[in-house]
Structure formats: C-alpha cells, structure tokens
C-alpha cells in the first residue's frame, strides 16, 4: 500500500453562494452573512434532562416556544419543531461545540447532527424586504405577527426555507438547502428588480 501523501493543494471549503456580489435595490439588499457552523439538536422539549444539558453547554436555554429563536453566548438557537433545533455557531467552534453537546447528551435520548454544509444562509434586509418575501412566502410577516427573533420553517415559492427575523430593519436570514441556494438567490434578486430604477 502506498504511503499517504499530502494533497496537492490545501482543501478549500466553499458554499454554494461563494463569490456572489451583494444585490441592492431601493430599500432592500441581498447579502451573504459570514459562514456559520450549523448543528441540529434533537431531543424532547418536555425532556428536562435534555433541555438542561443543552442549556448548560450553550449557556442559554433552547427556545421552547414555537417559531422563536434565542441568542446565547455560543450561538443562535432556532426552534424547528418540538424535538428539533437549529444552532448557528461560529464556524471555528462548531466541531468543539458538537463534541461538547454530544458528551452532555450521553445517556439521553438526544442527538447532535452537524449540518453546516447542508444549508446556506442569505440575508435580505431593508424596509422593502417584506415586499420581496411576500412574492413567494405565504407567511404573514406583518410586525404584529412576525417580529425580531421570530423564526419559521416555511417556503419561498418551491424552496423550503428557515426564515429568521434578525432586526427591525427588517432584516431576515433565510436558510436553504445547498442545492436550492443558487436558485433562491436568483429568485430573490429577480424579485428585487421591481425596486430598482434601471
């Protein structure tokens, strides 16, 4: 058997939207936030041992109310379902956090799954962001109904998305599967076209 040799070039990690220039229009912009590590946490909302273990590692409790997100010292936790959360963390700390969580969940019916590369996140912000989203997302995003740190798994036209309102701008982070990212970006950019003067 041959000896292992160093790869010819250092591996580069890339996302499906790398290199995309921001898209801007009157009152709305589409940008790429920094790449984040992403972990799916599985466990029961009603499993106190699980929620406590998660809170201990994350430094903040998981958001237990549906359609909400909670920011903690180690990242942002988004409610996906009664047994499922998405945690966005600094990419560099993702592996370590995953390991800590896995250790903390020992003996529990719980799971940690690294999905950092599965999903891409794009950021749509500005006073007209709601108008752009309304072109494909059936949710009522009126601030009385959907506000900062609300999140929802829903759809934009045919794409399944995880929508998170980041600030009152409003700014939204839109998470989508890798293979849909290019399409969704293109669709959103097209939806913004109406708000450009040329």
């Amino acid at each position, binding site marked *: 058997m041959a000896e292992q040799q160093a790869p010819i070039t250092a591996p580069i990690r890339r996302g499906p939207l790398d290199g995309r220039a921001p898209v801007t229009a009157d009152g709305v912009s589409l940008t790429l936030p920094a790449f984040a590590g992403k972990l799916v946490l599985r466990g029961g909302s009603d499993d106190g041992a699980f929620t406590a273990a998660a809170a201990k590692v994350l430094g903040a409790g998981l958001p237990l109310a*549906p*359609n909400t997100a909670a920011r903690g010292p180690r990242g942002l936790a988004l409610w*996906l*379902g*009664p047994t*499922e959360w998405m945690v966005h963390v600094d990419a560099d700390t993702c592996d370590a956090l995953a390991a800590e969580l896995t250790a903390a969940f020992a003996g529990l019916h719980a799971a940690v799954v690294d999905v950092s590369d599965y999903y891409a996140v794009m950021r749509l912000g500005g006073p007209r962001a709601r108008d752009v989203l309304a072109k494909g997302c*059936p*949710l009522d995003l009126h601030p009385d109904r959907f506000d900062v740190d609300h999140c*929802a*798994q*829903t*759809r934009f036209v045919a794409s*399944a998305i995880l929508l998170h309102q980041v600030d009152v701008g409003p700014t939204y982070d839109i998470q989508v599967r890798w293979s849909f990212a290019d399409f969704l970006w293109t669709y959103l950019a097209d939806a913004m076209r109406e708000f450009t003067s040329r």
Partner: protein
Amino acid sequence: MLPIRCPWCGEREQTEFSYGGEAHIVRPTDSADLTDAEWGDYVFFRTNPRGLHYERWFHAFGCRRWFNMARDTVSGAIHGTYRPGEPRTDVPDAPRVPVAGGDGGEG
C-alpha cells in the same frame, strides 16, 4: 388553499403541508393471523365519507410533524387539528363517522 393550524407552528397555508389520508387507521400487529380480505381492508379500504373526515396531514415545509385534522369533505369546514395521541376534535352535531376496523382506536 386551506389555512391549516399546525398543532405546533400555528396557522399556515396548505402549500406547506402534505396530505396523509384517513386518520386513526391502526396497523394490525397480528397481521399473520388476518385473512387476505382483512389485510386488504386495512391496506386499501377507506371510509371516504361525505361529511366529517378525520385525516392526517404532515407539515412538510414546517416542523415536519404529522397531526390529525377534522374536516368536512362537503362543506370544506375545518373543525380542528390535534396531535397524534390526543383525543379527536369534538365536532358537535356532526354525523358519527364509522372508523376503519369498527372500534376506532386512537392512532
């Protein structure tokens, strides 16, 4: 397009869901003891009522949870949704709907 209240996520548009057919059909655990006809009834035969229908939906684009819904197949009225294992939505004055298998165990 129906507005469907996911028992976890709240009201969402129908396009976030997929339909799962009649609810409360319990899979026989003694299938080896069933006749072909009894097994065929479980696999293929449905109540398909004109009127109140207990049915399953899946929040495919949302929390990915299955749940049950009571809906009238004629008037279109949705009488309520509830989680698996929870008692059926009580629908006053609704006709009693026979359930597969006759005795209607909760799913």
